[in-house]
């Protein structure tokens, strides 16, 4: 096995050329690419670290903000709750007042209606009682009662006060006639009693006896445009006035 020294030299040159070419086309570009990638990674890492620190700061900032918001939220909630409670109380109060007023108005209306109804009932009762009283008296009225009525009337005339007596006296003397109105016809005795009694006041020229069935039980003296009477009707009218007066 011989060594061809020309080939050896040529191969050495070839090899040196190959070293140079590979250095140019392989090692240098590859190393450069890797170095720039490494640098890029380092830069990126630094960027990431910066961004991380910024993010950390932002995080802290937002955490503080969140805490602030939390506390604000609690305050706002508490205020809102208090406000709602106050509003509720006020509304309840207002509703209560309204209710009370409504109740009062209703009570008043009820009372008024009761009063009106009571008045109507009382008036009806009074009217019915009076009518009943008038009817009873009307049913009971007769000659004997008329007799007593005449007696009572005459007694009343005698018991008139002095000034009234003088008025009566003057009326009798000034007028031509005295009219006696009764429910039932008066007998002669009664007529005489009346005449004699009137004569005691003044001289009676004429006495006219009239009947009036409207009178329940009573007697009326009319002369000189005036009249004196004793009448159950009158008592009843007075009673009616007395009874119905409180109901007005």
């Amino acid at each position, binding site marked *: 096995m011989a060594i061809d020294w020309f*080939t050896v030299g040529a191969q050495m040159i070839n090899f040196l050329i190959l070293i140079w070419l590979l250095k140019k086309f392989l090692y240098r570009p590859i190393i450069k690419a890797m170095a720039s990638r490494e640098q890029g990674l380092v830069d990126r890492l630094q960027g990431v670290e910066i961004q991380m620190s910024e993010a950390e700061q932002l995080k802290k900032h937002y955490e503080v903000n969140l805490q602030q918001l939390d506390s604000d939220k609690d305050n706002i909630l508490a205020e809102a709750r208090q406000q709602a409670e106050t509003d509720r109380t006020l509304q309840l109060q207002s509703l209560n007042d309204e209710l009370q007023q409504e109740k009062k108005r209703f009570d008043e209306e009820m009372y008024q209606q009761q009063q009106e109804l009571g008045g109507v009932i009382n008036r009806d009762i009074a009217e019915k009682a009076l009518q009943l009283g008038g009817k009873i008296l009307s049913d009971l009225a007769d000659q004997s009662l008329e007799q007593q009525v005449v007696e009572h009337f005459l007694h009343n005339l005698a018991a008139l006060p002095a000034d009234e007596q003088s008025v009566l006296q003057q009326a009798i003397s000034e007028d031509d006639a005295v009219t006696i109105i009764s429910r039932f016809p008066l007998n002669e005795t009664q007529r005489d009693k009346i005449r004699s009694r009137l004569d005691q006041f003044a001289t009676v020229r004429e006495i006219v006896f009239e009947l009036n069935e409207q009178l329940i039980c009573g007697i009326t003296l009319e002369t000189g445009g005036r009249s004196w009477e004793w009448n159950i009707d009158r008592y009843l009218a007075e009673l009616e006035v007395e009874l119905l007066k409180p109901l007005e």
Partner: protein
Amino acid sequence: MLNNPDQIILWQYDVIKINATLAFTWAVMALLVGGSFLITRRLSVDAPISRFQNLLEVIVVEANKQIRELSQQQPERYLPLIGTLFLFIFVANVLAVVPGFMTPTGSLSTTTALALTVFIAVPVYGIYRVGLWRYLKQYCQPNVFMLPFNIIGELSRTLALAVRLYGNIMSGTVIAGILLSITPLLFPVVMQVLGLLTGTIQAYIFSILAMVYIASATPKSARNL
């Protein structure tokens, strides 16, 4: 039986001749440089990286790593020599499976040329690193009487480097030739695969030894990372 590519003359003018060794060497060189050019023409710094770029980066990174481990020095200065040694021998050996391809490393001239390159590179790197005087002083270590032995050692290891690569590659070719004549068909294929493994290992060993020689020529005090 032995096909020495040196003996296949393609063109000759006086002493200048182009034989198969040179032709196939140029083919390997063209493949390496062309491939590198095509790949590194469009390098991307950021992802995505093409798989070929990734392959080259792996090769470069691994070569740098090996050089750093062996030399305890920054690998940039040694990468072109060591890396090219590995790539050239590896590609040449792997291409041996291509029919008709005669690997240049199967020629003693080529391996001698590579060994001589390393033989020259050792003192060049040493002097460059520590200076001429300090480098020469190493040959007198531990005393001046050791000078001849040191020089003989220097020469013999260069010879060993050349013969080792040549012997390994040639042995593969020889074994394949013998086996083909005895048991054709399948068995030689297995031997070819084994040849690939041997070729790869030889490429690695040659590069590593070159680095070891260069590193050993540098005083320890000069080694740093």
